[in-house]
């Protein structure tokens, strides 16, 4: 028996066209016949090479399309998830870089502005276009009206409970960091508010105060639109900031009186005890001004910077928190201005009467007419009224 030419078998097995034609089962038989005709003396070698390739080739199993789809879905899911995480870390990195830049840009004196909560101002802005009826709105959306002669609101330490005019209320949702309460004092009333940190705030009539039910952040921030007197409880390393549209007052623990009237572009802070730092936000200088007790800092309307006034009897300026105005040579026009704000009324005074000064104690009653009548008697003036408008005239 003649032995096969193994060199020829090897050549066939290494030949790419032989491999591709033979491994394709539809062509293999036909191809082999053609090849046999071409090499008639190598028929056996061709047959053996064909057998080897057939025997070597593993039959591929094909998986079901469902199985493939399930794995592909997992791939897409995992890729999307990984991609998200990558993006997140990139954003975070950019965020950190921006923070560093901003701090460098602002300078050290303004670092405290870069608190982790700028939201209170955004929240205030959002609300100022919304509800403006007097009352208290809790972080879970509850709306409470405020009654009584001298309303008081007191928060529990965690901010979840509050006592309003002697009755207990509970905020349904646990206080979140971004949840705020909004208080709008009714006209003709001053609300005595005790915040969760023990800080006492006398919110003047018609004023709006926004604050978190509990101070969970590094900085205690509240927002004021109107006027309020503060006795800030001292909490170590946790400054208290009264934000207003134009001016911020930053303290650690002290007594001060803030007026912020956007409509009149009037912003001032009067310090009674301790130390506060003032900063004007819209101007270019952006530096802090320290106040001493008895000083009143205010925003100069033209220059957008902060000026300081010495106030003789600062206690008199905050006497309204006790339900009266303590007046000591107070100019009539300035007094009437305060009263008009307090009761949300319009008072007209002839120019000739502005130099009149008044001293004494003026009780702030619910009815502005009584208060104005008292003034009329005190200053020997005549008072007339048309709806919410009041006119002073010289006695005839």
């Amino acid at each position, binding site marked *: 028996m003649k032995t096969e030419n193994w060199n020829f078998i090897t050549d066939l*097995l290494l030949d790419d066209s032989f*491999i591709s034609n033979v*491994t394709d089962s539809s062509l293999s038989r036909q191809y082999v016949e053609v090849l046999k005709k071409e090499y008639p003396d190598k028929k056996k070698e061709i047959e053996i090479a064909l*057998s*080897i390739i057939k*025997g070597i080739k593993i039959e591929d199993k094909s*998986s079901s399309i469902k199985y493939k789809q399930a794995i592909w879905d997992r791939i*897409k899911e995992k890729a999307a998830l990984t991609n998200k995480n990558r993006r997140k870390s990139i954003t975070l990195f950019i965020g950190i870089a921006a923070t560093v830049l901003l701090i460098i840009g602002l300078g050290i004196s303004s670092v405290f502005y870069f608190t982790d909560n700028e939201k209170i101002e955004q929240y205030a802005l959002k609300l100022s276009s919304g509800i403006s009826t007097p009352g208290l709105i809790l972080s879970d959306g509850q709306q409470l009206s405020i009654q009584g002669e001298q309303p008081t609101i007191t928060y529990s330490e965690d901010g979840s409970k509050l006592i309003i005019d002697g009755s207990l209320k509970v905020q349904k949702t646990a206080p979140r960091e971004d949840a705020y309460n909004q208080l709008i004092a009714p006209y003709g009333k001053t609300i005595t508010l005790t915040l969760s940190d023990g800080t006492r705030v006398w919110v003047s009539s018609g004023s709006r105060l926004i604050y978190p039910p509990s101070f969970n952040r590094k900085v205690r921030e509240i927002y004021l639109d109107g006027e309020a007197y503060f006795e800030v409880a001292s909490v170590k390393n946790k400054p208290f900031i009264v934000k207003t549209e134009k001016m911020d007052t930053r303290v650690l623990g002290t007594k001060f009186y803030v007026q912020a009237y956007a409509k009149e572009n009037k912003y001032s802070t009067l310090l009674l005890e301790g130390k506060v730092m003032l900063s004007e936000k819209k101007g270019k200088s952006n530096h802090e001004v320290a106040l001493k007790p008895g000083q009143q800092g205010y925003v100069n309307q033209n220059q957008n910077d902060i000026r300081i006034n010495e106030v003789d009897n600062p206690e008199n300026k905050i006497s309204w928190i006790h339900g009266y105005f303590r007046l000591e040579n107070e100019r009539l026009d300035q007094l009437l201005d305060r009263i008009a704000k307090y009761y949300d009324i319009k008072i007209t005074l002839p120019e000739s009467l502005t130099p009149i000064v008044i001293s004494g104690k003026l009780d702030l009653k619910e009815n502005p007419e009584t208060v104005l009548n008292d003034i009329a008697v005190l200053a020997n003036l005549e008072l007339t009224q048309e709806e919410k408008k009041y006119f002073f005239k010289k006695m005839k």
Partner: protein
Amino acid sequence: MSSIKKDKKNKLTLNKYADELASIYYAQFDALYNYGKRFTSDNFLIEDAIQNVFVNLMLDSNHEKINNIRSYILVSFRNELIRLINKSRKHDMLDQVKEFEFILEYSEDENFEDEELKILKKILNNYLLKNTTSRQQEIIYLKYNLGLTYEEISKILKITIESCRTLMYRTIKRMASDPELLKKLRFWKEY
């Protein structure tokens, strides 16, 4: 602003590429799965390796630079599967001494309708198990089953194209000249 634009651009390319990848995935799945079966009988490891390869491709933004996607996928699949196998073996102290093997064997339950084919496979299987290394078995698989070029094989086996040719030539020459094998094949053929 520029970073946002860049992000959007990346996202677009990623999505566009995802569609292309899907068709590659469905076309290559069986080949990868069967190739993986030569390394391990653990289906979960094979699934995981396929999954990881395509997840990485989806996230890779440099995909345009890959000229031969098929061999790229095969190479990364092989690397990933070996990594997973070694990882799973680490937990098994008894198996730790075992070296990685490319096992070219036919399962008994494989139901061949063709009696001729069944006998051929048994003959070749016995020969390969007795006379070849796992590396030789793998190159045979890559050549005859996957029909790869030497260039592609060289990337997978991490040797030069010349070394591939030499390895292949030696393996085939020895097989084609093996008297035992030829005798069996001839006997069966003549019968």
